[in-house]
């Protein structure tokens, strides 16, 4: 798609997301690309990485080709280190045990806030989305990596509704609201990788994915982009990364 080798946007997202993780981290992962990315990192570079599921699982190990359909069913517990209550696993976030939360979102804005609740009037919304789930808790209490497809209608200046807080309205507004830890750390898309600038806490392009220009990125984004002073180019997926993603998800359940 972007390179001569064929890979899907979802495969790219998975691989770029996996690269954001470090060995020894404890990662709260949702089903789909987050789970796949965490497993990829675990197998490739981070044998001491621990994956948590919202349903109540610590130290999940995914078998290639047996990806679970949600984080709440029994498949997620197979050969895990610990199964516990779902309030208990969420409280690990609050206690500070979790380094990184890994999420997708319907809408993201310049301060890394996510909307997965609704668009329109809360009592009679135009579009009612599923809701926060653990998203608000993860985003409030851990460093968050957001992985999502890059579309203009999804990259907006301000989300219609802050379901999962990034830096709220920038600067110290997150901290002032009582959220003392965490914050959106990275946004990974099929077009670029973003970080957040230290002072204003506004989204900033760190690196452009292979073949993507500044102009194309801006055209697909609903707010004016900042670019990091030392803007990089994302390393394309390696053969090893692509092979492993395909081994883990041979049926393209998550990576179609």
């Amino acid at each position, binding site marked *: 798609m972007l390179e001569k080798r064929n890979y899907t946007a979802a495969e790219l997202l998975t691989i770029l997301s996996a690269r954001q993780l470090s060995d020894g981290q404890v990662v709260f992962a949702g089903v789909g690309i987050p789970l796949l990315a965490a497993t990829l990192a675990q197998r490739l570079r981070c044998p001491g990485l621990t994956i948590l599921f919202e349903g109540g699982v610590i130290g999940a190990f995914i078998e290639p080709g047996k990806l679970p359909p949600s984080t709440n069913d029994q498949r997620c517990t197979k050969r895990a280190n610990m199964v516990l209550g*779902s309030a208990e696993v969420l409280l690990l976030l609050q206690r500070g045990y979790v380094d990184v939360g890994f999420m997708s979102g319907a809408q993201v804005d310049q301060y890394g806030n996510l909307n997965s609740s609704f668009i329109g009037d809360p009592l009679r919304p135009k579009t009612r989305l599923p809701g926060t789930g653990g998203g608000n808790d993860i985003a409030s209490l851990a460093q968050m990596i957001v992985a999502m497809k890059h579309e203009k209608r999804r990259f907006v200046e301000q989300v219609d509704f802050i379901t999962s807080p990034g830096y709220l309205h920038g600067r110290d507004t997150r901290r002032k609201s009582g959220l003392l830890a965490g914050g959106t750390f990275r946004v990974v898309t099929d077009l670029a990788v973003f970080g957040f600038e230290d002072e204003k806490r506004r989204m900033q392009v760190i690196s452009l994915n292979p073949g993507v220009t500044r102009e194309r990125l801006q055209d697909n984004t609903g707010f004016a982009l900042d670019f990091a002073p030392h803007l990089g180019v994302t390393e394309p997926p390696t053969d090893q990364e692509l092979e492993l993603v395909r081994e883990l998800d041979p049926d393209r359940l998550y990576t179609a």
Partner: protein
Amino acid sequence: MVETEGKSIDTHGYLELRQELLRRDRSLRDKVVSLEEATSFVRDGDLVGIGGSTMSRTPMGMIWALIRAGRKRLSCSRSIMSSDGDLLLAGGICDRVVTSWFSQGILWGVSKVMRHYVETGNVRYDEWSHMAMGMRFRAGAMGVPFMPIRSMLGSDVQKQRPEAIEIDCPFTGEKLLLVPALNPDVALIHVQRCDAYGNAQIDGLQFMDIDLAMAANKVILTTERIVSNDQIRRAPDQTKIPFFAVDAVVELPFGCAPHECYGVYEPMLRHMEYYVALVNGDPVKGMQQYMDRFVHGPKSWSEFLALLGIEELLEAARAGESIYDA
């Protein structure tokens, strides 16, 4: 009840809460009833807490029976709602959901049935974070009016929930959110096994069911199997819900179908796919068709299971038991 504009916020004063408990017969006694009899423990307008999560250990049989019994105006709370929620709304028995997430399962995306009822203003969706739901049940279970949490702060989820109160911590000066206790009038919980008194053992994922059971003012258990009290007492540290918190026990094999029951059966995905295609195609007519055939059609839960098909049941059971393959 403490009232906010028009609608209760479900927080009880302590004496009222204890009064409810005093009225319950907490003696060691047989509580086995039929599925139909169990529906009489739920009254119109009740705040109902639903156990399990997403497609797991959902008390589907009990929900099915409540729809057939024609309950009205239930407020249903569950940490994560799935097609159980579709049935509650389309079954016409529920006008408010209290949850953190409502979809048909991650495989199929947002529920068009839920969207239909919420977007037309017929059903109110009170959104809390997943942890907040857990802490509301926990406060209820502990007999205190609130739990302090550090999430929801600053977000629009908080702004939508004036029932939660922000404070400056008297110990640290930090901002905290106090989420109010949730003590459902009745909880519906499905377990792998319990005795006739209601001592219940849950295998695998527990979700928030223990707090939910202790928070509720009444508990209806459905169970894959009723076992002897002797069996329970041989492994008392596996008992997760004590009998005196339970008011009715219904033996209901495959009581979560077409959802899963840990270690007993996985979800019946063929049926779920048929269901999703039907109801998301037309959330009103599709759902009516489904209800006619699968909820109002069968004479009994066994007849419903027969409609799912023995092959799908066996396949789900084979997959369910495989969790114990080493």
